[in-house]
């Protein structure tokens, strides 16, 4: 329902610790934006500033056409879902849902109708007269979701809402939340979402766009596919994708990429994309793009293999650095493992060259 804009947002905590370093983020109306990053990278701090629970040190937060910096949380037209549900323990589910409307002096019949509607959407009708302590984790999280939904806010804020649930429930709640988001959009009241998580599966599956953060800086904002295919820097490259992207340090000499005693000759597929040729470079390539080959290619020493069902993760040492590659189960069976040596051919069409100094990806394709 509203666009959310952060500009030059900074947060310095009481002790003088700078948690957020002037970030800019533009979340479009109706967009599902995921904030992801390792623990302590200030995802929660950023979200709490948007909610108004944490004071902004400097910078600006806009929701729609209003600057909300000075508004209390209740006046920002936002709703928030907390990691540990934060249901009011002494109120029945019904009152938990209706609390916000009650404070807004919505008349009782309307309130009741709203509660019924939300309860129907989230399938919590039988739970309305229970206390929070009589709910399971998944039910409690649905109630928490309902409490946000009932207010029809302009922006939804989620802080790791699923991390207290078990894997199966998390998967189903994930679908439920994205479905809800789509449904609201289809009903003509698109809701802007900022969703914090440290789980990259959640980030990749739920987000329209993902904002990757590290130490209070934004590393990249892009669609899941773009993050995966064109990571802007080494951090994003390592953070997104499982198994992790292989990053092989080396030097570029002419069209050769040298690592230890071995050489990869960079072909047109890479050279054309390179914006600069850093001296100290790193070649980034996903395990899926390291093909086992017979005869030629890089030589690596096989250390271990993880059987994942239809494929096998091979861990090998390449010039003293551990790398991973993915092979089909049949391919792995056919592999000659007698001398522990495997040969690998990188698919350079999917390779990235990083500047080791700055961490930047210097081989981004200009388009597509």
């Amino acid at each position, binding site marked *: 329902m509203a666009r959310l804009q952060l500009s030059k947002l900074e947060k310095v905590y*009481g002790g003088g610790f700078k948690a957020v370093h002037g970030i800019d983020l533009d979340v479009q109306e109706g967009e599902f934006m995921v904030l992801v990053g390792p623990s302590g990278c200030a995802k929660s701090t950023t979200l709490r500033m948007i*909610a*108004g*629970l944490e004071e902004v040190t400097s910078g600006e937060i806009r929701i729609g056409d209003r600057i909300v910096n000075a508004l*209390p*949380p*209740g*006046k920002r037209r*936002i*709703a*928030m879902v*907390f990691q*540990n549900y*934060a*249901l*009011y*323990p*002494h109120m029945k589910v019904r009152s938990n849902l209706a*609390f*916000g409307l009650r*404070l*807004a002096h919505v008349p009782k019949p309307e309130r009741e109708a709203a509660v019924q509607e939300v309860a129907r959407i989230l399938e919590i009708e039988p739970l309305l007269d229970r206390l929070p*302590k009589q709910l399971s984790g998944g039910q409690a999280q649905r109630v928490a979701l309902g*409490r946000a939904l009932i*207010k029809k806010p302009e922006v939804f804020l989620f802080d790791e809402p699923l991390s207290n649930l078990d894997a199966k429930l998390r998967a189903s709640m994930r679908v439920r939340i994205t479905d809800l988001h789509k449904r609201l959009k289809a009903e003509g009241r698109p809701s802007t979402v900022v969703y914090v998580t440290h789980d990259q599966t959640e980030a990749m599956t739920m987000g329209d766009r993902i904002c990757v953060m590290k130490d209070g800086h934004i590393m990249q904002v892009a669609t899941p596919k773009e993050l995966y295919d064109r990571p802007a820097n080494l951090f994003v490259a390592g953070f997104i994708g499982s198994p992790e992207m292989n990053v092989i340090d080396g030097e570029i000499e002419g069209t050769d990429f040298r690592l230890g005693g071995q050489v990869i000759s960079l072909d047109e597929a890479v050279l054309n994309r390179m914006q600069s040729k850093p001296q100290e470079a790193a070649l980034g390539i996903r395990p899926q793009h390291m093909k086992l080959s017979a005869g030629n290619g890089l030589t690596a020493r096989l250390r271990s293999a993880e059987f994942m069902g239809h494929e096998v993760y091979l861990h090998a040492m390449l010039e003293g650095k551990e790398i991973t590659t993915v092979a089909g189960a049949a391919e792995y069976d056919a592999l000659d493992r007698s001398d522990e040596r495997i040969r690998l051919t990188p698919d350079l069409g999917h390779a990235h060259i990083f500047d080791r100094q700055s961490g930047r990806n210097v081989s981004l394709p200009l388009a597509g």
Partner: protein
Amino acid sequence: MTDISHASDVITAGADGLAEARAANARQIRNAKISAAVRYVILFGVGLLMLYPLIWLVGASFKTNAEIFANPGFIPQQPTTEGYVKGWETSTPYTFGRFFLNSFLIIIPKVIGTAISCTMVAYGFARFDFPLKKLLFGSVIAILLLPNVVTRIPQYLLFRDLGWLDSFLPLWVPSAFAGDAFFVFMLVQFLRAIPGDMEEAARVDGANSWQTLVFIVVPMLAPALISVCLFQFMWTMNDFLGPLIYISSVDKYPVSLALKLSIDTTEAFEWNRILAMSVLTITPALIVFFMAQKYFIEGLSAGGVKG
């Protein structure tokens, strides 16, 4: 053949083993019963010992004056309510009911004032940042550690200048403005143990600080608040020194002073009257305690967080 006989050996061995296990189990149950019996006897004995003075007090209040000293047992030989009747009349123009009324005129505003003011102050200390907070909280702790008697004289002078002597005001007004550091401290500690998430959720839901306090914090604080009220009630009921210092006219005496009064004015002590009125004096505290006991205990165990 050998196989079969072997198998039957195993079965009988198994049956023997089972019988043995049953016997051992029975032994354990018997031992547990014996030790429980021993424990209960000891507990009952010690409990009786501790309650004996109270039981004796109740028994003696129904005895005649002569019997109180003649008969050490607690069951009265010729039960009489004379102590209660005469005691209630007192040797003053007022009945004991007047003194009870006085007590409650102090206790009720004091308890209500304490609950409200201490909650507000504790909420402030536990949840907000403000200038000089450390210093102020430090002074709360300092007051907590300060012996009461130290402030008696300055307080007396202050209330004298305010013209509050011989009124109930000095006895309850300070408490109604969060003057009891102990309760503030107790509530602050309790609040600190409650996660702030619910309050944040309430703020996102549109509640201001007062609404958050009233709708969210106070209900969660209820067990601690009940303890506060209970303690304040009992301590005020039993307070002797405060009324002794500030109240001089007999018609304003609370029960604690009135009891003393009956000892002072009667030449030959009518012990059964004093004992009878003592019983009446402790009754409200007992009733309140037993009524609040459920919440009291709930409060002690309600800290557990569900995972």
